């Protein structure tokens, strides 16, 4: 199997980031088709496509869209989660930078289908370059009437605004993002059964749809070419294509779009193969998903079910590849630091647990690791997992627990000898 470019088909066409360049390759046909249909029919098309959320959770997109329509009349909101922060992932940044109109069109279609009056694209604060591209695309879309009153020739009004973040991984979580968008600290909110879903009560207590950038970018293609066409790509239970951000020890790191179900080994092949040594480990879906040993990668197909069965997750598609010079304990020390730094502080198990774990890694790195530290890490993971409002705690626990289980001998060596089993040249170097 080779790359299968749907979203990225025209990535390298000069001027594709302008409205004329985008329209020249069929851009905005999707929204024009959508507004010629009943909103329910648009959602049916998305349902037929089998599209699942591309931000990490893989939730069926149409269910969220449909959930908005069941509400009583009144303001409804559509939000694009462009707060890409999952380590190893860089697809949304590139989609916005190079194909901003595709994202804008997808959001506009969602606005029409859900009956929303207003949309917000919440862009990570660091992404000014991508945000400028989105801003220009939005201004052009307004000029051509794809946004605003009478959008795309319909009777609907849909306004879209940019809202920039200011540095917080936690805001990529949908309820924290909403807190941030309403002007608060980016902390998560209660979810069912304790509180209603955002599709019932989100921004300002109103029904709110939140999808990821890549999810919205799929929508124009689904409307233009049909849900059935989209569903013909991928596997029976994982439809369509997915962009994987491949980085680490590969010859040609970058974004590669493949049909779901493509073997991991082929994705690594597309990225030019492993460099600097033999394959040792892969984190296939961003830092929040469990790490795989080289043997676990053999024959693994990249679809939602296969990844789950293999003891990991597809996640955001941030595929980090590590060669045999990589010290897994050091690598997970960086992971532990990340989650300790990014925990928003709301829930005790996550706030305290992530910092305890980082402290344990720090003492192991100093040569002061204690017998039982590996088990202690697992015990802390077990006590964080499932005990926080949002999945950040789980996301810290899963990869660390998996690394202890799958690379136990490296932990034991570190604790026993106070140094890396791979010698002084192992990567990553801890600053």
């Amino acid at each position, binding site marked *: 199997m080779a790359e299968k470019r749907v979203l990225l088909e025209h990535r390298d066409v*000069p*001027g594709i*980031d302008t409205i*004329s360049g985008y329209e020249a390759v069929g851009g905005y046909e999707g929204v024009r088709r959508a507004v010629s249909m009943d909103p329910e029919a648009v959602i049916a098309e998305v349902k037929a496509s089998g599209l699942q959320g591309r931000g990490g959770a893989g939730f069926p997109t149409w269910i969220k869209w449909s959930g908005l329509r069941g509400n009583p009349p009144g303001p409804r909101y559509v939000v694009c989660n462009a707060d890409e*922060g999952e*380590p*190893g*992932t*860089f697809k*949304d940044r590139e989609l916005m*930078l*190079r194909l901003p109109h595709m994202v804008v069109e997808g959001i506009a279609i969602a606005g029409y289908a859900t009956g929303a009056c*207003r949309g*917000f694209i919440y862009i990570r604060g*660091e*992404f*000014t*370059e991508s*945000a*400028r591209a*989105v*801003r*220009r695309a939005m*201004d*052009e879309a307004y*000029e051509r009437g794809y946004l605003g009153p009478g959008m795309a020739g319909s009777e609907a009004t849909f*306004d879209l*605004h*940019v*809202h*920039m*973040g*200011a*540095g*917080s*991984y936690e805001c990529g979580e949908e309820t924290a993002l909403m807190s941030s968008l*309403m*002007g*608060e*600290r980016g902390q998560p909110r209660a979810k069912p059964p304790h509180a209603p879903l955002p599709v019932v009560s989100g921004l*300002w207590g109103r029904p709110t749809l939140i999808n990821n950038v890549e999810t919205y970018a799929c929508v124009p293609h689904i409307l233009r070419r049909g849900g059935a066409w989209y569903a013909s790509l991928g596997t029976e239970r994982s439809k369509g294509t997915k962009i994987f*951000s491949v*980085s*680490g*020890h590969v010859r040609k*790191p970058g*974004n590669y779009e493949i049909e779901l179900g493509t073997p991991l080994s082929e994705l690594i092949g597309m990225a030019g193969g492993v460099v600097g040594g033999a394959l040792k480990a892969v984190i296939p879906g961003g*830092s929040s998903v469990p790490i795989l040993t080289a043997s676990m990668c053999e024959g693994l197909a990249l679809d939602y079910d296969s990844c789950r069965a293999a003891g990991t997750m597809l996640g955001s598609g*941030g595929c*980090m590849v590590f060669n045999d010079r*990589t010290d897994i304990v050091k*690598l997970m020390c*960086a*992971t532990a630091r*990340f989650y300790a730094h*990014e925990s928003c502080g709301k829930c005790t198990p996550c706030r305290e647990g992530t910092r305890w774990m980082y402290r344990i890694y720090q003492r192991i790195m100093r040569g002061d690791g204690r017998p039982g530290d590996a088990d202690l890490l697992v015990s802390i993971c077990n006590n964080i997992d499932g005990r926080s409002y949002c999945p950040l705690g789980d996301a810290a626990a899963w990869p660390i627990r998996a690394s202890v289980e799958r690379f136990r001998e490296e932990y034991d060596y570190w604790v026993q000898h106070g140094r890396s089993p791979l010698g002084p040249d192992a*990567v*990553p*170097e801890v*600053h």
Partner: protein
Amino acid sequence: MSALNAGRTGRFSPEALRELEEIISHYPERRAAMLPALWIAQREYGGALTRDAIEEVARLLGRPAVEVEGVASFYTMYNLGRRGRRHLEVCTCLTCAVVGAAGVLRKLEERLGVRVGEVTPDGEFSLSEAECLNWCEAGTVVQVGDRYFGNVTPDNVEDLLAEITSGEGAGVVQQADSVVQVHLRRKGAPAGGTGRG
């Protein structure tokens, strides 16, 4: 609050106030414009959110200053402490770490004469580690203001320093302005492409 601030004049320029009011109009309530208001303040106050900046935002949004400070302190890009006019952030997260971020950081410490977390004596540069900047295909990634630099190695650190000293957009004030500008709709903006970079 209001009694304390009575008669005080803020540093938001008339243009900044216009920008803020336009942004506020995007939301059903003023408070929602907290993040953009803090970005405007960071620009208007020369790159740092001082006590006065926090109080002016509080006044403009009709919120308690302690709430504004609580929000500002949550997000890493707001400068509540001391940063240099150009703030260098080296990604040391997973991918960058395995392709040599520590070497880049060490070289920058050497070259600038400061450690991570410090500011040069002339106030020009500050240096910090950053968590994933999400351009992992180009590790090691360094962010300076609104500029991203990819494939940074100890050997090309000099080029980066030359570029940020002469180039646009690398300062903390320009970064805040860039963030503010993308919130604002440009009426009749010329259609134009953007390069990849």
